[in-house]
């Protein structure tokens, strides 16, 4: 399969196979307006299989939550057909309305309109703590 290179935009490479759609959802890009290519199950020397996402003409999207979806992915910002910047993803220290608290005793389950805020507890185990009830969840298990 051949997909053209882009002159300007973002290429997210080395996404874990099967996670491309989830990454696209998190980025919240209007695919009705923007040109987006999602390549699924491409061959990868590093991972065996990978997903790749190419987004044309956009370079300023919020990537905070992306580290949470797949922090092994690599992000390349493309300008004038060349990589102008590489972004190393890491788990964000704090995320808002990305992880939803599932503790039925948490105030977020009854009080409407309050943001679900989680803080990184342990990078190695990818654990986050709810700001309100202190419930701990693994980022991958949310």
């Amino acid at each position, binding site marked *: 399969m051949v997909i053209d290179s882009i002159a300007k935009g973002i290429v997210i490479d080395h996404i874990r196979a099967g996670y491309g759609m989830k990454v696209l959802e998190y980025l919240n890009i209007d695919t009705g307006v923007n040109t987006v290519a999602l390549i699924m199950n491409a061959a990868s020397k590093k991972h065996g299989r990978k997903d790749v996402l190419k987004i044309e003409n956009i370079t300023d999207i919020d990537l905070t939550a992306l580290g949470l979806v797949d922090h092994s992915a690599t992000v390349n910002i493309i300008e004038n057909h060349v990589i102008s910047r590489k972004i190393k993803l890491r788990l964000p220290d704090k995320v808002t309305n990305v992880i939803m608290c599932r*503790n039925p005793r948490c*105030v977020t389950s009854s*009080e409407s309109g309050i943001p679900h805020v989680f803080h990184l507890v342990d990078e190695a185990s990818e654990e986050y703590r709810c700001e309100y009830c202190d419930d701990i969840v693994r980022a991958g298990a949310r």
Partner: protein
Amino acid sequence: MPTGLKGRNLLEPMDFSVDEMECLFRLADRVIEAPEQYADRCRGRLLATLFYEPSTRTRFSFEAAMLRLGGQVIGFSEPNSSSVAKGESLSDTVRTVACYADLAVIRHPKEGAPRVAALATDMPVINAGDGGHQHPTQTLTDLLTIRRERGGLGGLNIGVCGDLRFGRTVHSLIKALSRYPGMRFALISPEELMIPEYVRKEVLQKGGIPFDEVRMLQDVMPGLDALYMTRVQKERFFNEEDYIRLKDSYILDAEKMRLARPDMMVLHPLPRVNEIAVEVDADPRALYFKQARNGMFVRMALIMALLGVER
């Protein structure tokens, strides 16, 4: 000397540093020595007590504290008598109350509700118990009692027994005591009611604090400086069968007390159901009613500190 706590919230015990806690305890000591000197400190001030869950001693303790300081109290003791019954959000209720009162005390069945309240207003907010999460003013009571009995905090082997999963006083107590040097904990509970993961990982393991998780109270009694008993709380269970099966797991009686050191402190946040036999009340090591009295004094100190009228 001012405590530096004016305008602050108390949502969980770590909101105050060890030094700030010490200032508060010294203020409470002064109140205990001469309560009449503080009888007018809160004249013209209004405390709102928003109790979305039943409470006897915590609510009475706060109300008594404010009245003994010369202040006044408004509030509700069950949400059906307020606009909450009409479906008002907690944030809106608190914003409205902040138009009238100088300080609010909140008890709520949902964990983290006092934080939501504090985010909605600039008025100081005190957490008087949120679900099975935290109960920091009970911790002030517990620490003041231990400190007054032992002359200080730290270097203690504390046994915590009963419902460690849903017992909010336990979570706050362990968090607060973990900041003092030389602490060690024996966590005595049925497997189903062990402490939550966040306390084990974030407080004990991260702090490098030695602790043992055991099933039998008798196994650890001889080594304890203090035993903190808790009630297995019916309202925290999703199913009644589990409650009935576990409620009598740990009962402290005179026979078990014979295994304890002659100066071991027995503490309990109250109310007790049957986890401490009435025969233990006569034992001089039983401090739980003294604790309840200390609770009022430390709340007097807290109210003065948050309103900045302690001098």
